[in-house]
């Protein structure tokens, strides 16, 4: 009886294993398999922070259209969650194993991803940094090397948002700030830019500034708490649109949409709709699609041996309601 159980047990597991194996084989075949240098096309990997955010989906769209035009075999991968730095590191390690020709990376951690950039360097894979800068001191200390940085000036974006509040409110006004993930280069620069942007306007005052980790539900919760604590809020600056949209919901739930103006960052589609409807004030547009496109184009240049500038800026602008 026991031996029979044992046989069944092993059979069951073999079946489970085969099922997984089958799934893998079919998913592999389905995608045509990652053959090395299919038709001699260069293989370029774009590793973003996560693919559940419209910003990175736009970036992927730009990269894909450039890849089609230039005959590049593009691989786009990301961790499930933006905070999962270790997972992003694993993904890059695994891509190094597949010997991609070039790697475009939007690092989830400005310092944490430096060791893996170094691994790519050792494997002779050029690394292009997109959207979020690596920490320069760490890069220098570790002897890592990147081909270039493609992205917009987040500090400048924050500053534009600050200036906008300066002209929007003519009287004394209390503002609150929803910060992104603390210690993140992008998040920090935006808030720093915003603070400097409102500095010339003494009638503006930041009464609360708290992190909401770039997430929509946290933006909602933190905003709800701020509405309880601060009665006179007139404006909100959120370090990204996910938090801004969350805050917008909280303000709507409190029935104060008319009194509080929200400015976000990234100008994702949903934010643009809110702006057009007049419920949201503005959003700083970063053009992620352009970033993705430039990333692939620049990677191709690097692979051809052309020299590329260290910093390739992507234009930044404030999206507001037409005519407002």
């Amino acid at each position, binding site marked *: 009886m*026991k*031996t029979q*159980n*044992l046989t*069944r*047990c*092993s059979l*069951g*597991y*073999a*079946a*489970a*294993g*085969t*099922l*997984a*194996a*089958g*799934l*893998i*084989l079919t*998913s*592999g*075949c389905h*995608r045509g*398999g*990652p*053959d*090395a240098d299919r038709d001699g096309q260069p293989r370029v990997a774009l590793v973003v922070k*996560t*693919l559940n955010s419209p910003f990175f989906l736009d970036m992927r769209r730009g990269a894909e259209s450039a890849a089609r035009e230039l005959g590049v075999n593009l691989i786009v*991968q*990301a961790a*499930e*969650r933006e*905070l*999962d*730095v*270790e997972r992003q*590191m*694993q*993904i890059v*390690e*695994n*891509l190094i*194993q*597949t010997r991609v020709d070039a790697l475009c990376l939007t690092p989830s*951690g400005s*310092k*944490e991803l*430096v*060791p893996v950039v170094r691994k790519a360097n050792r494997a002779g894979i050029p690394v292009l940094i997109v959207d979020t800068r690596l920490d320069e001191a*760490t890069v220098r*200390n*570790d002897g890592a090397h990147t081909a270039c940085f493609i992205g917009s000036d987040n500090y400048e974006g924050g500053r534009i948002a600050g200036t906008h509040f300066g002209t929007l409110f003519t009287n004394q006004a209390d503002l609150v700030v929803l910060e992104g*993930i*603390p*210690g993140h280069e992008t998040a920090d620069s935006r808030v720093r830019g915003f603070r400097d942007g409102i500095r010339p306007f003494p009638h503006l005052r930041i009464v609360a500034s708290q*992190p909401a*980790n770039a997430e929509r539900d946290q933006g909602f919760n933190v905003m709800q708490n701020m509405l309880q604590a601060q009665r006179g809020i007139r404006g909100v600056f959120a370090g990204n649109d996910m938090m801004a949209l969350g805050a917008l919901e909280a303000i709507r739930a409190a029935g104060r949409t008319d009194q509080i103006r929200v400015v976000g960052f990234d100008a994702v589609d949903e934010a643009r709709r809110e702006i057009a409807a007049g419920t949201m004030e503005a959003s700083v547009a970063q053009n992620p699609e352009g970033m993705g496109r430039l990333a692939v184009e620049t990677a191709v240049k690097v692979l051809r041996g052309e020299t590329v500038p260290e910093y390739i800026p992507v234009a930044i602008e404030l999206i507001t309601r037409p005519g407002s």
Partner: protein
Amino acid sequence: MNWKTWLIHHGRQLGTLAGLLALGLALTLSSPYFLTVSNLLTVLEQVSINAIVAVGMTVVIITAGIDLSVGSILALSGVVMATVLQQQLPVPIALLVGLGVGVACGMVNGLLITLGRLPPFIATLGMMSVARGGALLFTEGRPVSGFSDGFRALAGSQVWVIPMPTVIMLGVYVLAHFLLTRTRFGLYAYAMGGNEQATHLSGINVRLNKTLVYGLSGLTSAIAAVILTARLNSAQPTAGMTYELDAIAATVIGGASLMGGQGTLVGTLIGALLMGVLRNGLNLLEVSSFLQQVIIGGVIIVAVLVDMALKTDKK
């Protein structure tokens, strides 16, 4: 012990191993990059963190408990250790402090469960939030980064060609396997999971041993924190989120029963390897991260379904 009894004893692990080998074979056939020495070493390095956390989880699950706080304890002991490291104190002192924080948090879990009579789910759910909040408060939400080469060697160096995290992982498994199979503590762990009342009545100090079990889980989380911190050259207060789920998955795929009294570390190691190989392989095959989640979830469900079917069979 003749080969037949050996087979019966290890049938469950052999089954998981067969699954792992089938997966490896499929990946070898579908990707030219899978079966290379450097890729397999990469996988061994990547699984080390989850595999080490899963050691403590396995022992906890053998006692019919659960530890949801492993990821948060990992983050807290990581940031505390990193802060000590930045005071330019010797590395061993920082390691001791970091591991001490892990053990202390684990023991608090144990005391809440034994003295406070809280269900393990609730006690460790509370600790999950307390330790996470503690890590965020301690660092004001910012990562603590930049360490000496000596410390970073704990993740970046090799013994012969084997990455150091893998060597540490194997060391932890050998020690814990010994603890679980050759000592009274191990015997008591299985006994408590099998029938706590009977264990208590046979004169075994259930409170003490159970508290130690959760202390051990805190310790393995802290060991994982050492590797993670050295690997990223940074300790993040947000590190280790959802690691408890990966550790539970590795343990359950490896044959442990959430009802307690069952489970082996060899099985858990194979379970962790299976998950690591699956993640690595899905990356090599360029499968999207969304589909990856579906596949990994499916494997966990199938593994437990097979297990359950077998158990009803025996009855």
